[in-house]
Every structure is written in C-alpha cells, then in structure tokens.
C-alpha cells in the first residue's frame, strides 16, 4: 500500500464539494436514519413492521417525504464518503476512477430502485 502523493491529489474543488456533501447530508441523516431505526426497532417491534405497516406509513405524505429525503441523503453521503476511502486506499489514479465510478453507479442504481419503489407504492397503495 503506497502513501498518498500530493501530486496526485484530487482537485480541490471536488474535495470541497465532497466535504460539504458529507457534512450536510450527515447532519440530516443523524435525524432521519436514527429516527427511522428508532421507529422500526424501538417504538415498534421489528416483527410488526411488515407490509401492513409499510402500507399505512406510505399512505402519509410526511413519511413518503421522510423516506425520500433519507434515501437521497444516505446515497449521497455514501458516495461522497466512499470516494474519500477510495482516495486513501487506492493510490493509482485509474484504479481510483474505476472505484469511484463504480460506487457512484451503484448509488445511482440504488436511488432509482428506491425512488421507483417509493413512487409506485405511494401512488398505488393496493
């Protein structure tokens, strides 16, 4: 494992954008994700949170908005956070680009999957 060489550092603007993304979405997630866990594991037993529970919850616009915000914030946070890790643990620029690109693609795919699930289920509560 080679050390990070300053000459191959990521451009400053991109690092700043990543830094801000992590901080802003992180503060949001401290509320959204911990609230989500508390609701589905502490206020309700996890065994009660099946399809009936989801149907009731997604009938409310508030919870759909909560879940949509959480989905977007979590995946942005994940992509930006993983980019930091990749830059630390992969030192070859090409390898970095491959990893960052792959993780970004995964996050975009998961966002589409989550957004589609949420939209479809909220519009068609059958």
């Amino acid at each position: 494992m080679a050390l990070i060489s300053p000459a191959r550092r990521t451009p400053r603007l991109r690092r700043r954008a990543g830094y801000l993304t992590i901080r802003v979405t992180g503060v949001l997630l401290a509320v959204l994700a911990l609230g989500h866990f508390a609701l589905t594991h502490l206020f309700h037993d996890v065994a009660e949170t099946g399809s009936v529970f989801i149907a009731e919850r997604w009938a409310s616009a508030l919870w759909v908005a909560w879940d949509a915000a959480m989905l977007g914030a979590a995946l942005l946070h994940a992509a930006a956070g993983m980019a930091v890790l990749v830059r630390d643990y992969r030192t070859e620029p090409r390898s970095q680009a491959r990893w960052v690109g792959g993780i970004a693609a995964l996050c975009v795919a998961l966002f589409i999957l989550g957004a589609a699930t949420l939209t479809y289920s909220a519009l068609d509560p059958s």
Partner: protein
Amino acid sequence: MTAPQLLFVAGFLAVNVVVAATVVLVLRGARAVDGGAWSAGGVLARLVRLPVERAEANRWAHLAHRVSGVAILAFLVLHLLDVSLYALSPARFDEVHALYGTPVMRVFECGLLSALLFHALNGLRLVAVDLLDLSARAATRVLGVVVVASLLGTVAGSAVILAPVVTGGA
C-alpha cells in the same frame, strides 16, 4: 426456506464479509501509514494515560468511523433490495421481512444500532470540531461523551430489540 429468503440470507452473509474485509483494509492501511501493529498491551498502556494525552483515541475514532460507515452502507444495499420487493409483491416482502424477527437478525440489528449511534454521534462531533473550532483536548473530551452515549444507547436499544428473544416471543 423460499427462494427470496435464501437470496436474503446470501446477501446478509455478503454484508458480513464486506464488514470483515473493511476491518482488515482499514487496519492494514493504518499500519502502512502510521507504522507498526498495536499489541493489546500497547493499546491498554495508551488508554490508561491521562485524558489530555489521549489524542490517540481520535485516531481510533477515525478508523471506527470508516468501518461503521462501510458496515451501514453494506446493510443499506441489502435493505433497499429487500424493501423494493414490497413494490413487486407485499406477500413476497413479508416472507423475507419475517427473517428480521429471527434471533440472529435481532443480534445483527443490535450491532447495526451500535454502528449507527457511533457513526452519527461521532459525525456530529466532527462537524462540531470544525464549526466550533474545538481544541484537540476538547475534541477528545467530546469523543468520550460520544463513546459513552453510543454504549448506553446500544445497551438500552438492545434490551428492547432482544426482549422478544428472551421472553420467547421470537
């Protein structure tokens, strides 16, 4: 076990492999950058120093933040996949979701809670360090609060999560 349940179990195992691999990666990286492995005795000697000398703790927090972050992401991928089953068929989703109530998954959920609490509280600490311009000494003191609060929250939450296992309800 049905096919979706088997897929979930496979995904669950993959999540655990990713977490274990991340621990190895992060520890090896720390060793390459900072040099030397830490023997248990050395770590203990460092931890019993006076609080002001415990800047070392910040480095451990940095490593734990990475591992907990990757662990949460690995679980998030699995969780998004299983929830998306709901849109296909609520009955199929319920089959898979039933696994979340099993004792093994409940223990995993306690671990997830500890990772979430530490990552969230330590993340807020890092924001505070930057915004309030905390000194290294203050940052270390806040880290103590973060660790204690995460532990207390995990113990209290685990009692709730594991209660059905203990009383025979799960």
